C-alpha cells in the first residue's frame, strides 16, 4: 500500500527532514514527480558528515497528486544485526503534514547496513 500524505497546501513549500533516531549514519536521496508527468527529478540528497548537521532538510514546491520517492540508507559497522530507526518528516508552515511522519524501522545486516526505498503519493 503506497503511503498517502496530505492534504498538501499547494501555496506553501513542503519541508522534508531526514534523521536517524538510532545512532546510525544515514545517506538519502529524494526525487519528485509532478502530476501528469513520468519524469522523476532529484531535488535533494545528503549524508552524515556533509556538514548539514544530524537532521537533514530539503524544501520542495509541490502540489496534490505529486509524488516523492525516497532512498534512505543507514549504517553502523560497529553494531551488526542491530535495530535501526530513521524518520522522514514532512511539514508545511512549521506544521506537520497529516500522515507525513514516515518511520523507517528494521534490522541491519551482518555488516551493519540496510536501505529503504519507497514512494509517497501526496494528496
Amino acid at each position, binding site marked *: 500500500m503506497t503511503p498517502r500524505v496530505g492534504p498538501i497546501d499547494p501555496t506553501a513549500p513542503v519541508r522534508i527532514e531526514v534523521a536517524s533516531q538510532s545512532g546510525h549514519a*544515514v545517506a538519502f536521496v529524494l526525487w519528485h514527480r509532478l*502530476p501528469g508527468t513520468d519524469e522523476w527529478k532529484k531535488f535533494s*540528497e545528503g549524508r552524515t558528515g556533509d556538514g548539514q548537521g544530524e537532521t537533514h532538510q530539503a524544501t520542495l514546491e509541490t502540489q496534490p497528486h505529486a*509524488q516523492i520517492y525516497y532512498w534512505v540508507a543507514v549504517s553502523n559497522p560497529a553494531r551488526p544485526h542491530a535495530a535501526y530507526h530513521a524518520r522522514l518528516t514532512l511539514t508545511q508552515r512549521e506544521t506537520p503534514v497529516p500522515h507525513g511522519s514516515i518511520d523507517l524501522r528494521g534490522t541491519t545486516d551482518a*555488516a551493519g*547496513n540496510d536501505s529503504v*526505498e519507497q514512494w509517497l503519493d501526496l494528496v
Partner: protein
Amino acid sequence: MARSRLTPGVRAALICWAMLVAATVPLAAQDADTTQVDDDTTTIDDAESDSADLVRRAAASVISSYSVPDMPAAAFLGTTPATIARPATARDFLIGLASGVDEHGQARQGFALEASPSAIVPGFGVSLEQYREPGVNPRYLLANLLISLGAARAAGDTAPTVLAYGVRVTLFDRGDPMRDPAFLEALGDSIARCRPRAPIPGIPRAGSSTGMNALLRDLLAEHHDRAVRCMDSHTRKLARRYARAHWNASSLYVAYAGGEQLRRGSFARRRHAGDRAWATSALRVGGIGQTLLYADWTHDRGDAAPDVFDAFSYGARFNVGSESVNGFAELLGQARSGTPAGVPGRATAWSAGLELRAAESLWISAGLGERFRRTAAPEVVAVLASVRWGIALRSWLSPAE
C-alpha cells in the same frame, strides 16, 4: 584425523616457515579485497588439512574463552543459536517473546532473542549526536545495552530446559568509530556512493488504481539488495582499516547471564540454575602497547547441593607491537570451589611469544608457556594459530555471515 609426528627441530622449522610465508602476505592486498572476510574464511575452510582443522578449533577456543560474549544468554547455555530474533520495535519484541512459549505454556527449545532497549522502548532512541556526547554519557550506555534470552535442553529425555537471560553493555570504547567525526564523514560518503541513480521504473501515478504489484516489489527488492551489497563492501573495508589503526584503544565491556531450570519446560517448576559474569578491559599503552584484563565468574548450582561450585577465571596480557605483529606475555588463572578431594582449587598458567597476523582473523603464534604446551606434544602439528583476544578483534570486523 591423520596426525604428523614431528621432531622438535622440524617443528621449529615449520614455525619459521609458516611465519615467513605469512609475512609475505601483503596486507594492502587484503585491504583491496572488497569481500575480505568471506574470502579469507573461505580460503581457510578450503584448506583440507589437519593443521587447518587444528587452527580453527584453537581459534574458536580462544575466542570463546577470552571475550565478553556477544550474546550472554547463549554463552550461559553453551549453545550457538541457529536463529536469533532481533526485534526492531516493541511490538516485534512482544511477538518474539511469545514465540519462546509453545501452545502448552512451556519454554520452546532453541528459542533465542536479542534486543536493544534503545530500539524497542519508545522514547529511548539515541541519535548519533547524543551518542557522541563526550564524558559520562547515559545515552551511550543505553545505546550499547543489549539484552538476550535463550532456552535449551541438555541431551536426554529427562533433562530440564534451561531458560537463560543476559545483558551486555559497553561502558566505554575509545576505539568506537561511531564517535569519530572523520570516520563518520568517510562512512557517510561510502554509503552515499551506493545510492540508486533513479527510482525504479513503472511506478503508477498518484491516484492511480494500480498499486504495488509483484513486479514493483521485485524491483524494489533488487534495488535494495544491490545497494546493501555495495554498502557492505565499502563499510567493511572502512571499518577494518579503522580498527587496525585503533587496535590498542582502551575499552571496558561487562556482561551478565543467569538461568532457570524448568522441569518439563514449565515455568511453574523452575529452579535457579546459576549465574555468570564477564568483564574485559583494554588499556592503551602509548602508541605500541596494550594491556588486556579479563575476568569470568561462574556460579553453577548443578542438579543438587553437592554439584554446586563457583569458578573465577582471570587473565592479564600485555601486547606490544602493531596491529599485525606483536609480542605478548600473559598470565591466566582460575580459582574454583567445590572441587573433589585431590583436585587443586586454583591454578595459573603463563605464556609469552610472538604473533603475526597471517590473514583476517588468523594469527600465527610462536612462544613458550602453557598456551603452547599442547602443541609441543609429538602428535600435534606445532603451529598454533590464535585469534587475538576477542576484545581486540570484535565481531564487527569479521561478521559471522
